[in-house]
Every structure is written in C-alpha cells, then in structure tokens.
C-alpha cells in the first residue's frame, strides 16, 4: 500500500513537471528562444500562429514543440533554423522557411544530431537548403511533412530529407519536391520509407548509398531528373512503388548499381527512358512488376549475375530488354510480353515456344547509340523479324522459356 501511494505521488510529480508553455504572439512568453530556455525536460511548448525570426534555435533537452496553425519560423537565408541535439524531441506543425546555405556546413531547415526517438511531423518546409537532416540518429520518425525547395544549380542545392548514418528510421507520408534528391540515405540501416510522394526533384527522387536492410514501399517517384538510384547496398526491399515519367537522356525509373540480395516486387514502371537499369547487380529478384511504355523496360548490363526476372508484365515498351554482352547469367521466367507471338496448344496459359526479349535492333543501339536514328524504319522492322527466326547477333541464351500468354498484374 505504501509503495502504491509513493508511486501515485511520483506519477503526480512527473505530471506536474511536464508543464505546458505557450509561446509566441499574444502570449506571456513572446519569443520561442525564451520559451525553450525556460522549459524543463519533458515540457511541451505551444507556438502560436505568427511570424518569427529568431535565428538558429537549438533544442538540447527533450521537448515537444507544437505549432498551432503553422507558425512561420524564418531563417532569412542566413542560418539553420532548428537544430536538435537531444533525444525524445517532438516537432509538430511548424512552417520553416529560408534556411541559410554554406559550402562548408550543410545547413538545413531542421537538423537532428546524434539523437534517439525524435519525431518530426506535419511540418512545412519552404526553400530550405536541406529540408530535414538526420545525422547519427536511431529510431527517429519523419512523417507527413511537406518539403518544397526552389530549384537552383545542383551543387548549390540540398536534399529534401537527408539521412546519414541512421538506424531504424521511419519516413512516411511526406511530399518532397524541388530539391536535389527527394530522400537521401547514406549508411542508413533497418529503416522504412513508405507512402511518400517525391516529385520533380533535380536529381533522384530517392537515393540510397551504402544502406542495407531497408524497405521502401507504396511510394510515388515521378518526374524526377534521374528517377531513383539504389547503389552499393544489399538486402533492400522495394515493393509496390510507382516509378513514372522520368524522361530524359540519362533518366531511369530505377537505377541499381552494385546492389545485391534485394527484392523488387509489385512495382509499376511507367513512361521512363529506362524502367530499370542494372549494373553490377547480383541475386536480385524482380517479380510481378509492370513495365509499361518505357523506352527500355530493362537494361541489364553484362556485369549482372544470378538475377531472377519473373512474372512481370512488359507492355508497350520501345525495347523490352537490352544488354551489352552475350553472356547470360540471369534468368527470365514466366513473364508476360506483349510482343510474344507464340501459341499455347495445351491451353495451360504458358506459351509453347520461348520468347527472346532482346531484339536485334536493341543490340545495335546498345553498341551504337546513334543507331536510334533508324528507329521505326521499315528496314529495322524487317531485320528484327529475320533475327527472331534465326538469331545471330542477339544473345541466344537470353530467353523466357515459359512466357505467360496473359498479363498477370493489372495496373
């Protein structure tokens, strides 16, 4: 009994300790800086609607900063606006504008340094160099933010959400546009990226470097300068995303470079210059995706091995598959190809003759890019037909032994 009473008192004391402070326009505490200095660990600061220019604010104790009706914190292109150095900080509902930009330090709208369990939610970031920057954090969550940059030259522009050396991060439901990369991961492990919309960024919608065991799903990456890049990583799961409209001379839906043991499942690749570009990729399973109206659906470089491409739909692409070598170390199985002209006598849904997805013209173009000038020439059409019957230049072994007669994954 005594123990329980003590416990109750303790809880009461804690409750009292976690005070609420109202700061901002029309409140007793006019400035946010003052409120932060005043607050004790565990307090909640409510920032009222208004316009604040208070330079850099550093949060070095566990606080919750909650904006009421999106108060504006303006950095006047001079400083980093919020710097979080403590764990268990919550930042909610602020509008952060105009961070500074330096060539020596990456200034951001909100930066978190070496902290755990920080939550950044429902914030608006406008014209910041880097939007949200997490460095050496664990178990942080960045959700439902709207990050919009203003396009400058690539070297003078930061990323929307930038993570460096983090573990178990959760990035969800954010809208990102106008930055260098929408989301950037470097040395980030065991993290999840979901339901984000990354659009019209200068370089990549999502950029992975040296980040293992991550999962991204249900995201939309559209109209970015070069699509999405996953490099030097392993065990990355990419599922149910949309990669679309990345159109340009060096744009890809998804660029895979030196990546292994990953799984690409149920994504849609629509109207990209190249749907998926694989270079130095090993043991990747690409299954049940839909490739529609891309220039190249798949560009598999000869440096790729032991990849499995199965049960995908290839519809309306200019080239289905292209490769630069004759050695075939990858398997194609049970895909649906709209170009397939075979038959299915026993009606089991699987074509009776194999399909060779690499056309002669694709080989020619891979060797001589200016060969594309002959695109849609009648001659090329004839050549492809002849090559289909008697393969000579195309890799003979590269074929789908059991192509599906019907599309499996409807859009």
């Amino acid at each position, binding site marked *: 009994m005594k123990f329980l009473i003590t416990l109750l008192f303790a809880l009461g004391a804690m409750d009292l300790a976690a005070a609420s402070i109202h700061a901002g326009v029309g409140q007793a505490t006019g400035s946010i800086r003052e409120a932060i200095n005043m607050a004790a660990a565990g307090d909640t600061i409510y920032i009222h609607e208004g316009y604040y220019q208070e330079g850099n604010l550093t949060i070095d104790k566990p606080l919750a900063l909650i904006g009421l009706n999106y108060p504006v914190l303006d950095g006047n292109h001079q400083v980093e606006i919020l710097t979080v150095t403590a764990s268990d900080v919550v930042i909610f509902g602020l509008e952060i504008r105009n961070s500074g930009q330096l060539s020596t330090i990456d200034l951001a709208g909100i930066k978190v340094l070496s902290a755990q369990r920080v939550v950044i939610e429902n914030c608006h970031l406008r014209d910041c160099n880097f939007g949200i920057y997490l460095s050496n954090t664990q178990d942080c969550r960045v959700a439902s933010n709207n990050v919009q940059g203003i396009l400058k030259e690539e070297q003078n522009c930061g990323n929307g959400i930038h993570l460096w050396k983090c573990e178990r991060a959760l990035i969800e439901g954010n809208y990102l546009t106008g930055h260098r990369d929408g989301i950037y991961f470097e040395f980030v492990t065991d993290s999840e990226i979901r339901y984000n919309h990354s659009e019209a960024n200068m370089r990549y919608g999502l950029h992975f470097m040296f980040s293992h065991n991550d999962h991204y799903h249900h995201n939309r990456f559209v109209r970015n300068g070069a699509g999405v890049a996953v490099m030097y990583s392993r065990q990355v799961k990419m599922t149910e995303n949309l990669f679309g409209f990345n159109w340009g001379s060096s744009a890809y839906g998804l660029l895979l470079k030196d990546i292994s043991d990953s799984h690409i499942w149920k994504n849609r690749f629509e109207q990209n210059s190249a749907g998926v570009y694989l270079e130095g990729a090993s043991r990747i399973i690409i299954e049940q995706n839909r490739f529609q109206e891309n220039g190249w659906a798949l560009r598999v470089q000869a440096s790729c091995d032991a990849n499995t491409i199965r049960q995908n739909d290839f519809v309306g692409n200019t080239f289905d598959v292209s490769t630069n070598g004759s050695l075939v170390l990858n398997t194609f199985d049970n895909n649906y190809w709209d170009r397939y002209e075979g038959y299915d006598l026993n009606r089991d849904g699987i074509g009776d003759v194999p399909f060779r997805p690499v056309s002669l013209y694709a080989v020619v173009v891979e060797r001589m890019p*200016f060969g594309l*000038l002959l695109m849609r020439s009648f001659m090329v059409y004839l*050549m492809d037909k002849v090559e289909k019957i008697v393969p000579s230049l195309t890799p003979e072994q590269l074929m789908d032994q059991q192509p599906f007669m019907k599309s499996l994954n409807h859009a």
Partner: protein
Amino acid sequence: MASVLLRLTHLLTPKTDIVIRIVKYVLYDILQNRMLLGYTLFLLAVSFGLFNLGGDSTKGLVGLLNIVLIVTPLVSIIFSTIHLYNSAEFIELLAAQPVRRSVILWSEFFGLATAMKLAVLVGIGIPVAIFSPDLTGLTLVLVAAGLSVAFVSIAMLASVLTRDKARGIGLALLLWFYFALLYDALVLFLMFAFADYPLEKAMLGVIALNPIDLSRVVVLLQMDISALMGYTGALFREFLGTGTGIVFACIILLAWIFIPVFFAVRFFGKKDL
C-alpha cells in the same frame, strides 16, 4: 515606272496564264482518275482505323507514320510516272503549240503535286485534325505532303529519263525501293563499318540525303522519343528540334522537291520527243 510595270505584266501575264490553264487541264484530268479517289479513301480508312484501334492518339500517329513513310512515297511516285506516260500524247500536242517546254513540264508538276497533296491532306489531314490536333499531328501531315511532292518530283525525273513506259515504272519502283529500304540498310552498314568514329554529325548529313529518313527523324523528334537517344538525340534535338533545325529540314525537303524536277525540265528541254 508605270511603263516598266506594264511591260513586266505584259511579259508575265501570258506565261502565268498558260501555266494556270495547263495546270487546270492536268488537275482536271487527274481528279477524274478513280485511282486518286481510291487512294484518298484508302488513306482515310487506314487513318481512322489506326486512331480507333489504339485508343491512344500517339499510337495512332506512330502507325500513321509508317503509312506516311512507306505508302505515300510509293503511290506518289508510281501514280505520277504512270500519269506522265499516259499523257505523253497530250504533252506532245502541247509541245507543238507555241508554248515553252519548261512551261509544259512545270505545269504537269504543279498539277500532279497539287493532286497528291490534296489526297494526303484529305486522307491524313482530316483524321489527324480530329484525333490529334497538336504540333506532332501537324508535323506529320506537313511531312506527308512534302514527301508526296518530293516523290512526284523524283517521278518526273525518272519518266523524263526513260522513253519506255515499262522501264520508267521500273526505275520509279527501284528509286522508291532505294529510298524506303535500301538506304537504311546502307546506313546501318556504314554505322557498323565506322562504329569507332564519332559519327553523330556525319549521320545528320547522311539522313538529309534521304527525304524519307529526314521526315521520319523530324516526326520522331516531335514525338519526344529523342530522350531515348542519349547524346545523339540531344544533338539532333538541338539541331532539328529548334527553329533553325525546322528551317533546315524544310530547306532540305524543298531541295528534294525542286532539284529533281529542275533537272527533269532541263533534260526535257533537250529531249527528242
């Protein structure tokens, strides 16, 4: 000043008057021809069919591009050659009149060109105007019209060069075969042979030497396929996609229209009828 003008008009009027009158005769003769009507209806049917088949207007345009690049030149060149041989007597009759030979041949050319253009504008222009009234569609129609006229011009040269009808048609067919098929095969061969050299700029010249290739590339650039072409595409887009490029393409196509007929007229002037 007034007297100079009077003398000028005096000089010009009878000639232009004659040209217009002969063109009228030629046109009247051609428009009565059932083959031209059939051709127009065929183009209409194919165009409507292609646009209704795919559902997507871009797909329709791509299909139409193939028709424009293969069928229009073929029909143009064959129809014109046959027409010229069939009206050999009419031409001889005119040559007996006090009319310059160049006037006769230019009139034949304008008559034929107008007829072929008309067929294309109706047969392809109307469906495109309905289903895809944008810049790409406009480019396609203009290219189709230009190509038709260029092949009328080539037909003029072919039929003036040979006296025998069968030979003339054979030559016309051979020329079509060369431009539509052989040329691309030769280009491909060249590409393989000189693969180690930076051929991008040379390709531009090579493409300009064939009106069919030039038309194809101009339309494809409009269709935004250039993004696939990487460096080459960027180069071509920079050149052919811009105002100067369009002017360049137009000049080349005009050259293809007027140079063969110019030589035909010169040769016809000295020809023993």
